[in-house]
């Protein structure tokens, strides 16, 4: 690390942060279109409550382990291709491309298996949904996998992190899934699937399963959900993961040499305090501006 110009390291840090931002955004939109995260519990529940729908349903695993698998696979394949003296750019693209097909296979089997298990509640397997959604989730998955593997490659090769590429892929893949699901899931789950519920309040447990199934024209499908969540949840997840990656590298690059490592610790603690202060500020802001919960006025009276 010491023999590389600092400007170069800062540039790589910024680049890694930017790649992480793209990865976070693509990851969240992929999981919303594929209905991968926790809100999928409602997609699975809806037919059991009598609400037949055309939402994709491919929760293969929780988001963090699923993304841990895909990024590790992409990074591992890229690493193997590079070991065969392949150009790194080509190796990363090929590795991520192959991984995307693995994701597609998982998505297909997950949709067919999960939906077929709902046959006794009358939920059909829509082949057109399978055809149109799977490729879209694969495309988003490729963007996320490619951006994350490239970021890991930069961290490993240019910044000299000791972990080999596949291990970095596992670490950041799980972190990517954790950040994306934590930030994006509530928006997809509450705001989109329960769009008919009152804005500004949680979904009453009694309403579970009654997801929105109709769009402006015809029945809603998961592409509509991707269109909706790409406006806020996707970018927010991207900024979340981008900040995590950027600040983590930034504090190590700039402040690790200060005070035999204590510099990075102090800066990290200061940043935690800053985030705590901003969080507390918006929490109080919401309490003041939104006020306590008031039961919705009955629709019939209006």
């Amino acid at each position: 690390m010491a023999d590389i110009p600092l400007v170069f390291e800062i540039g790589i840090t910024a680049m890694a942060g930017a790649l992480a931002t793209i990865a976070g955004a693509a990851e969240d939109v992929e999981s919303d279109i594929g209905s991968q995260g926790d809100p999928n519990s409602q997609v699975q529940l809806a037919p059991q409550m009598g609400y037949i729908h055309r939402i994709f349903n491919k929760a293969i695993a929780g988001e963090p382990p699923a993304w841990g698998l895909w990024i590790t696979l992409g990074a591992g394949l890229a690493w193997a291709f590079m070991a065969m003296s392949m150009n790194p750019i080509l190796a990363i693209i090929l590795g991520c491309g192959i991984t995307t097909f693995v994701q597609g296979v998982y998505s297909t089997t997950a949709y067919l298996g999960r939906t077929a298990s709902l046959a006794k509640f009358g939920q059909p397997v829509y082949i057109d949904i399978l055809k149109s959604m799977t490729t879209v989730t694969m495309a988003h998955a490729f963007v996320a996998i490619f951006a994350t593997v490239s970021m890991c490659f930069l961290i490993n090769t240019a910044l000299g992190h000791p972990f080999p590429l596949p291990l970095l892929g596992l670490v950041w893949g799980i972190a990517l899934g954790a950040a994306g699901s934590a930030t994006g899931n509530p928006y997809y789950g509450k705001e989109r699937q329960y769009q008919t519920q009152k804005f500004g309040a949680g979904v009453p447990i009694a309403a579970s399963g009654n997801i929105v199934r109709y769009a402006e024209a015809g029945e809603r499908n998961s592409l509509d959900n991707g269109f909706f969540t790409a406006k806020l949840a996707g970018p927010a997840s991207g900024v979340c993961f981008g900040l995590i990656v950027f600040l983590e590298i930034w504090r190590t690059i700039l402040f690790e040499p200060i005070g035999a490592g204590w510099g990075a610790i102090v800066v990290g603690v200061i940043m935690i305090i800053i985030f705590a202060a901003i969080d507390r500020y918006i929490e109080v802001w919401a309490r003041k501006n939104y006020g306590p919960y008031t039961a919705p006025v009955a629709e019939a009276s209006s």
Partner: protein
Amino acid sequence: MTAIAAKPASGASLNPVASGIGIVVLIILIGIMYAIGGQIALIALIGIIVGGLLIAFGVHFVPVGGAPAAMGQAPGIATGVAMLAAGAGLAGLFGGAWAWAVQTNPDLLVAVITGGVGGGLMMAITCFFVNFIYIFGMGIPAASGKVKVDPLTGDTQPEFKSQGTEGHGLPFISFVGGVIGGIFGGAGGTLIYLMLLNVYQEVLPKMTVFDKAGAAGVLPIAISLAGIFAVGMFLINAVLAAYNITGTIEGPHDPKFKRFPRALIASAIASGLCGVAALAIVFVPV
């Protein structure tokens, strides 16, 4: 039935017989390790067990709402306990391992704290974005379902809670809990990694298969092995703690938090067993 309605089958009480047997097993494991590898292995195993305890304890702090949180039906972060803790802890491990590699004269304490702060920072950013989405995306202020007053800020909670839910968002105590959980997780993961790395760096060059490689040649293998085992042990401890929590937890103010002693005993034994396996691969001749 949702995850909220799922009640644990048993309470928070410790089973004295099972705990006693567990501690005896742990002592036997430590004894076996000392017999196989001597002092260096003994110190490493104790470090691994302490790291495991830090992770299992830390997971209890992390506010996790699971699927109900994704619908604004329960407070916390909308993902699984083990996964979220793993995300934070591994981000910490990334920082801790790097801090160790960068320094010419690395200090164990500095690297472990760096890992802890890395995990805490990841959680701070994630928790902030959870509240950001809840407040600016969904217009929902944070409200706890388990306590009437936030123990840190004194904010009253019940009037902000939506009807028919257990609460939503992250009250400030949950945010702080998340950060503390991330710090413990990151520190524990880094400690396990460094303990394993130390042993591998010491023992691997002496093995006959690595005769020609030398200390520098085995370093990538030592780092990879230690990293993979550290990630594995992290997940084991996080999942054990998640089973202890059963579903959702709001943070340190949640009544479920009091169950942590049970997880600590389980985690010590699991870490001990995994530690023996991870260390034995270099000590037991094949």
